[in-house]
């Protein structure tokens, strides 16, 4: 562990400087130019991370402490940076993708009134993500973890006037907070049992934690990761997060933020290894989420929601990979997915941008609105196809390789294998449907604004294309990444590869059938199965269940706030205090000021004393 190089410091210093400069200077003086310092800082971070990647490939890794953060008696926490192969690899993906999406955002947000405010929030997220990836202990990771949650709250609710955006922002932060509570408890338990939260100390002697304790901490960490990486129970916020502008969805809710959970699981692999039953459990949850996401994606109309559910599905795949195959499959899929999912989202952004005026300014578009855009948006079509193919796992492209490693790891247990294959089929199914419906040919029921849909300006489609190319060619990164992570990639057996290609092909076939051959197309089909559609729309009752739970808590709050506080506590104290004047009123009315009565009471008192004395004598 060599001391921190200059590049490492740039990682954090550049974004901070850009943010400070942006907030205090350009946001005040010339809001339209806020993006310039921010883009510069993105470039700096990208360059620094690539430089570090080069160094890491040479086998180097760095760590260093900046300052002591908390030093109560038993709790000693330092602020430091750790740049080992894992963090550098993910960091470089995030930096590159982030840089490209920043450029895209300049084009996308040009007409927005709060242009500079958007970039400040956007870069705040970027800074938090970089901090998260490079922190050297759990508490610092938790700090940036919540920072990322805050940025997502600000960005999802960026269009403040939209009530749905506000609700989505709040829902995202609240769900993340539910997860973060588990994460915080894990950190506190770590302090309790091992006295430290620094990765170096924890992972250098694994005997610190007994297997039973490791299971508890591991589970709580997984619970935190579930919220951030939208795994089954806590994924509810991701579909609603699409309310935010598309670059936000692309960068945060596809490529980087949601992968933080997977990164956390990858980062704490020595911990999870010690817990016996934990990894299979994680894998199972991952697999289930994958299938669940795929089903959700297939039945959606809104193009961004389709991609959102697809992200849920692929995060499930990463978790499955992490659970089944260890670190390498998860990280490799994470990186590849980062590229092509960002590309797909940006293509969706282009489509929305293209159809903007014809949709009456609606921030999102559905599959019904689009249709046959191949002619009018060739570049976006090319990027989309590349991304879709890579996502579905068509052999030469990146997605195929990363999916292979995940499935190889999953094939250990039959259940996981089945779910894995099902996901492979599902992902090619929904991406195929989206491809056919939006770009290839216009169906009768589609409004097809292809006529006046216009291609996005170069500042938007160039980064998209680059990203999709990255996604497609990512396959070749497998070997260097494996060498970087120092692990031997466990190639899938030929049967596994054949099965996955078969399921992928089946998926495409089905999609084509559903899109073109079905009589009357989708609307007819939807009207025939309203119950099924409604069930899927509400994620088989899981979304309403969560809303009802939140409603119950709000109800309890109202009950406590209004009824307990208002009608029991307040009047309670007032009545208790009012009892005395009431008693005094009762006593006062009895006394009528008659002299003989005064004498009567006096004599009675004296007689009482006399009798008492003579009795007690």
């Amino acid at each position, binding site marked *: 562990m060599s001391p921190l190089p200059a590049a490492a410091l740039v990682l954090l210093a550049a974004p901070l400087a850009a943010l400070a400069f942006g907030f205090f200077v350009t946001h005040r003086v010339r809001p339209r130019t806020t993006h310039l310092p921010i883009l510069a800082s993105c470039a700096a971070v990208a360059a620094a991370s690539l430089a570090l990647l080069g160094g890491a490939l040479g086998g180097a890794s760095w760590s260093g402490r900046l300052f002591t953060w908390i030093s109560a008696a038993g709790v000693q926490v330092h602020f430091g940076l750790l740049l080992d192969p894992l963090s550098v690899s993910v960091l470089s993906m995030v930096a590159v993708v982030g840089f490209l999406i920043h450029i895209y955002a300049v084009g996308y947000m040009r007409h927005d009134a709060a242009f500079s405010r958007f970039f400040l929030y956007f870069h705040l997220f970027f800074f938090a993500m970089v901090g998260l990836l490079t922190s050297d202990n759990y508490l610092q990771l938790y700090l940036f973890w919540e920072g990322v949650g805050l940025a997502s709250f600000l960005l999802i609710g960026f269009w403040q006037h939209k009530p749905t955006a506000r609700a989505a922002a709040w829902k995202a932060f609240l769900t993340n907070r539910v997860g973060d509570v588990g994460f915080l408890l894990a950190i506190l338990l770590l302090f309790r049992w091992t006295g430290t939260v620094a990765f170096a100390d924890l992972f250098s002697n694994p005997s610190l934690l007994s297997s039973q304790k490791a299971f508890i901490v591991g589970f709580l960490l997984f619970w935190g990761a579930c919220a951030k990486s939208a795994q089954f129970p806590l994924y509810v916020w991701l579909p609603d997060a699409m309310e935010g502008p598309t670059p936000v969805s692309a960068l945060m809710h596809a490529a980087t933020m949601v992968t933080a959970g997977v990164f956390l699981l990858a980062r704490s692999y020595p911990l999870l290894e010690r817990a016996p039953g934990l990894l299979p459990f994680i894998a199972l949850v991952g697999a289930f989420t994958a299938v669940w996401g795929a089903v959700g994606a297939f039945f959606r109309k809104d193009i961004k929601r389709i991609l959102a559910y697809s992200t849920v599905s692929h995060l499930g795949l990463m978790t499955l990979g992490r659970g089944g195959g260890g670190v390498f499959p998860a990280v490799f899929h994470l990186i590849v997915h980062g590229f092509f999912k960002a590309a797909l989202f940006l293509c969706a952004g282009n489509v929305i941008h293209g159809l903007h005026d014809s949709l009456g300014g609606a921030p999102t578009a559905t599959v019904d609105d689009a249709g046959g855009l191949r002619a009018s948006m060739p570049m976006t079509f090319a990027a989309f196809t590349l991304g879709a193919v890579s996502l579905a796992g068509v052999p030469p492209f990146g997605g195929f390789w990363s999916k292979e490693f995940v499935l190889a790891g999953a094939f250990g247990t039959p259940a996981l294998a089945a779910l894995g294959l099902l996901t492979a089929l599902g992902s090619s199914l929904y991406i195929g449907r989206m491809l056919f419906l939006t770009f290839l040919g216009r169906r009768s029921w589609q409004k097809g604004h292809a006529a006046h849909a216009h291609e996005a300006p170069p500042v938007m489609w160039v980064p998209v294309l680059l990203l999709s190319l990255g996604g497609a060619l990512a396959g070749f990164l497998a070997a260097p990444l494996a060498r970087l992570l120092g692990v031997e990639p466990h190639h899938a057996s030929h049967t596994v590869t054949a099965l996955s290609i078969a399921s992928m092909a089946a998926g495409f076939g089905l999609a084509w059938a559903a899109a073109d051959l079905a009589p009357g197309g989708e609307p007819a089909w939807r009207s025939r199965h309203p119950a099924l559609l409604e069930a899927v729309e509400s994620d088989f009752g899981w979304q309403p269940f969560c809303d009802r739970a939140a409603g119950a808590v709000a109800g309890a709050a109202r009950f406590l706030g209004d009824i307990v506080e208002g009608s029991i506590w307040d009047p309670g104290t007032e009545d208790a205090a009012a009892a005395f004047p009431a008693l005094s009123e009762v006593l*006062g009315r009895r006394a009528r000021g008659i002299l003989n009565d005064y004498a009567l009471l006096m004599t009675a008192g004296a007689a009482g004393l006399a009798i008492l004395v003579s009795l007690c004598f």
Partner: protein
Amino acid sequence: MTPLSELQPALPALSHAAALTALCAAAAVCRRAKGPSVLPAAVSAAGCLAAAWAAAAASSAQGPLLDLDPAARLWQLLFGAAALLFIAARGALTWRAAALLSGSLCGMSLLAGARNLFMLFLGLEMMSLPVYLLIHGLRPDKRSLEAALKYFFTGALAAGFFLFGLAAYYAGTGSMTIARSPEASPAAALGVALMAAAALFKLGAFPFMFWLPDAYEAAETELTAFMATAVKAAAVLMLMRVLSLGAGAVETLALPTLAVLTMTFGNIMALRQKDLQRLLAWSSVAHAGYLVAAVWAWRRLGGPPHAAATVYLYLGLYLAASAGAFLALRASGARTREDLPGLAERAPLAAVLLVVLLLSLGGVPPTGGFTAKFFVLWDLWRAGSPLLAAAVAFNSLVGLGYYVGLVRAMTLDAAPAEPRGEGACPRLGLRAAVIVCAGLSLLTGVMPGLRAGLEGLLK
């Protein structure tokens, strides 16, 4: 015992008596001085000062009937202070009123120095009769006559109790000197009980206190202040003297229960009062309850004179606060609760002083009232009865209910359209007296060492 030295202990009483006779003689001689004027007040004040000087300077001689131990000297000073406050606040007195005042003070001096039970009775009578007359004298209206009569008859009943108690004690032990008598007989115990009843009447303890609100409400405010302080102090003195005769059952059972009943009844009744003087009357009943508790604690701690420092301290600080409160009411001109709103705007100085005095009566820390209550609570804990301490604490809380209620009415409530109550009383002496009382209350609030000083004085 040369006659002169024998008179030594009686000097304070004699100086008051001299003032009394001088006033009567002057009245008889000059016909024209009809209305209240400053001269009689000055003569009476001179009597007080002479008594105070005598009490401080006289050598500690001990006659058959009177003696001047350190405690007695302290009482003389206490009575002198209350009297001077009355004279200063009143300013001018008719010679009859001045004579009555000197007579009452002479009675109190006898009471303070009494070694013989009969002197106690004489002191009681001499203290009470002038007050009955003064109540009606200073403010000759129907209400004050009614108050005087009620006070007279209940007072006479109490005097009857005291006399019969004295007789029974004499029958039981054969001695009349205030010293713990060896022979213990039921008659002696009965005697002590009845005399204690008379003392509790004068103090205003339950069930003997029903006369007090009427007398305090109808009397002239300065006289009420005098009654609430000097007469109450004399009553405490009587109670302590009588209990030192060896009260068995009265002390252990009756006193704590009466104390709790008094303070609770006093506080509860005060909550509903509209007339401010009647409210302060009931609050002084509550304070009588705290005093009875303090006396009980003193007895339980073995009853050495210096241990009574808490009682003296409480009396001294209560004297300042209570007299100050009554005089402040007079100075601000507020008669009933409705006169209070907006007082802070109309008479800011009077309002501020009244706030300080009310808080002191309530026992709120930065004021003397708290120091007094603090030591009472502590003594009760030392005497081994935390429950009585809890009762005192709870009652002072109820007390705060109406004290802070008055403060709220005065400062926070909005002033009514047309000004209410009589205008602020411009008398300089009155304002000076109130300022002295308020200043004393504030000063003693931060002097916890006061009690230790008193203890040293009494040793």
